[in-house]
């Protein structure tokens, strides 16, 4: 089926003389039509982009082009629970899949090298601005 539909125009081209004769006759017919009916071009619909199209949604880190680094503990601790020190999931942080993965990797690196707590969040970061609300996740909690 696939081959047949795509081969058809090629087969037509093989009989080239016939094809050319046909196309020239069509062109003549169309040119004669356009001269007969004069169209006011200002009345024609204008081709334009959809003005109501919404902007592409981006996650916080992608939007500001921030790449998480294990030395930047202040940034990473924003994705940590103040109660348990655990990393918030993607349904809470609202990051894209790749960025969430990167953040988790960097947090684990920071915890390995004793820059960041595993079960605690540093008290000096408690009053940092909140990037998201854990009480209102994007998708419902598993629990």
């Amino acid at each position, binding site marked *: 089926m696939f081959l047949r539909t795509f081969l058809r125009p090629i087969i037509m081209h093989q009989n080239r003389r016939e094809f050319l004769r046909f196309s020239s006759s069509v062109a003549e017919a169309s040119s004669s039509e356009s001269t007969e009916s004069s169209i006011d071009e200002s009345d024609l619909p204008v081709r334009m982009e959809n003005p109501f199209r919404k902007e592409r949604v981006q996650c916080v880190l992608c*939007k500001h082009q921030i790449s998480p680094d294990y030395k930047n503990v202040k940034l990473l601790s924003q994705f940590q629970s103040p109660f348990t020190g655990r990393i918030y999931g993607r349904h809470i942080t609202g990051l894209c899949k790749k960025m969430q993965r990167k953040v988790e990797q960097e947090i684990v690196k920071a915890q390995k090298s004793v820059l960041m*707590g595993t079960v605690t969040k540093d008290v000096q970061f408690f009053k940092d601005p909140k990037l998201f609300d854990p009480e209102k996740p994007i998708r419902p909690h598993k629990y």
Partner: protein
Amino acid sequence: MPSYEALVILRQMPRQEVITTLKRTAEAIFSKGGFIRKLDNLGHRTLPFRVFEHGIIHKTGTAFNITFDSPSKVVFDLNEEYGRDVDIVRSNIFKAEEPVKIKCTLQEELQPPAYRKGVIRMLRIARKGQKEKYPLNTGLNYYPFQK
């Protein structure tokens, strides 16, 4: 591009001893055929949890970040040497990474399940496992033979 980053945490000690320890850690890299590109002091800090190392419990330490180039087989030796050093509380050698350039896919992830790429792929795999059903062509709406 620098190949490795060593994050070393030294134990709490006088300034002069910190300098000698830092020299020792740096010379370990030089002696094994590497060279240092950058050395950052990340400051004296209270550790987020107590670290039991070389028979002492450490609660404070000074963090240093050493960016260096070296052959890859040196990393194992360096880890071993830093592990033996009494003045080093914790040392980790990571690959130095450039800032990531990720193309955000949040737009696609927020679509309803039927439009998500992963779900479509899962459905295709599930369909593959099912047996193909052939029409009987008997004109009857039931199977006429014994099963």
